[in-house]
């Protein structure tokens, strides 16, 4: 019963070796770091594999963790010795920062621990412009003083100028250089704060020349605060609620005078 510790280590190592010898699909790497360029719409990760076993491997399913990622195999079955790859196409959309997505691959490997492989793609998305805040608003009747939106341009994008336009004439917007390099200060001011107004402010950088690079923020004058009404009937409450909803809803067109 007094087993030599060296024997024990040997048994553990041998067990591990036997276990690895049964593995068939060998992945070059199961985690990929992506660095999409500014403005890229998609980023593709390639996960390469090789069937190092003696029998064919059949892909049962390939499933991405999010709807923003589409994963596919080149083939359904991989013969012994054959190489291939699983591609994962990540649609960037409006995402920024570090994004981690996974793709779960299931094969017909009889060993359950080898049958499922989780592939991970990590993408670091640097935005062209970092805008804060995305909303400036004034309470109804508040003094119509300008409010500032800061836009920090990516230093690699060489942006020299921003063009800001309001969807309605009730707001004016002025752009100045910020306190730091590649920074802009957008000063937004309402003409009047006695009526509820909503505007989309479109921010267009002069570089790169791409129509898709238009950013939007919102400016609003809020509707009057609801006053404590005397005990009203449900019908009156419903009408008030409808009016408030209408006031808070964005103007359908830039020319709408009521907004």
């Amino acid at each position, binding site marked *: 019963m007094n087993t030599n*510790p060296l024997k024990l280590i040997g048994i553990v190592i041998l067990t591990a070796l036997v276990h690895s010898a049964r593995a068939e699909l060998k992945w070059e790497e199961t985690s990929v770091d992506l660095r999409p360029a500014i403005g890229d719409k998609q980023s593709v990760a390639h996960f390469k594999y090789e069937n190092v076993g003696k029998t064919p491997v059949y892909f049962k399913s390939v499933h991405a963790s999010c709807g923003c990622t589409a994963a596919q195999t080149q083939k359904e079955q991989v013969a012994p010795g054959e190489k291939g790859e699983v591609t994962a196409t990540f649609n960037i959309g*409006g*995402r920024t920062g570090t994004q*981690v997505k996974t793709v779960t691959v299931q094969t017909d490997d009889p060993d359950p621990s080898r049958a499922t492989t989780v592939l991970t793609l*990590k993408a670091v998305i640097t935005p062209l412009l970092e805008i804060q805040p995305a909303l400036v*608003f004034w309470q109804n009747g508040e003094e119509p003083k300008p409010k500032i939106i800061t836009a920090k341009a990516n230093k690699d994008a060489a942006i020299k100028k921003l063009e800001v336009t309001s969807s309605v004439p009730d707001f004016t917007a002025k752009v100045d250089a910020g306190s730091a390099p590649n920074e802009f200060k957008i000063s937004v001011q309402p003409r009047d704060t006695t009526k509820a107004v909503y505007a*989309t402010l479109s921010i267009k950088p002069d570089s790169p020349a791409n129509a898709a690079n238009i950013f*939007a923020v919102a400016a609003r004058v*809020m509707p009057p605060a609801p006053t404590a009404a005397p005990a009203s009937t449900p019908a009156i409450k419903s009408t008030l609620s409808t009016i408030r909803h209408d006031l808070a809803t964005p103007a359908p067109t830039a020319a709408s005078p009521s907004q």
Partner: protein
Amino acid sequence: MKVSAVRQALLLIALAFMPAIGEAIYFRNRVSWQSAISASELVTVDQARSWGDNVIWVDARPDNEFERDHIPGAILLNEDRWNELLPQFLGQWSPEKQVVVYCSAQSCNASREVAKRLREEAQLKDVFVLGGGWEEWLNNKR
């Protein structure tokens, strides 16, 4: 004999720890699959329902899932079309209301990301994530 058994047990435990320690060192810089969220930012279906009309529901799922079905009155705001949808949402936002963001299920991360961006980029307060997401809403459907 007892001492020997204990020694062997300790040796086995130590061996079992080795790959875990190696993995912890190798993956030390890997980010979590889910954004961190504090308990105070999570709400249950019942809690959100108790707020009545003072809730703005935000659906962070992809367009097609929103079109299929959604919480009545929910506003679509996902990261696929963030630049386009964010101003539309902000036009309907109201400072008196709580914002509750949801995605497909407990395992999804989209609602956490959207809630985080609403707090940081739009600087909104009272933004919450619905625990269990759409799946939990369906389970609690009355």
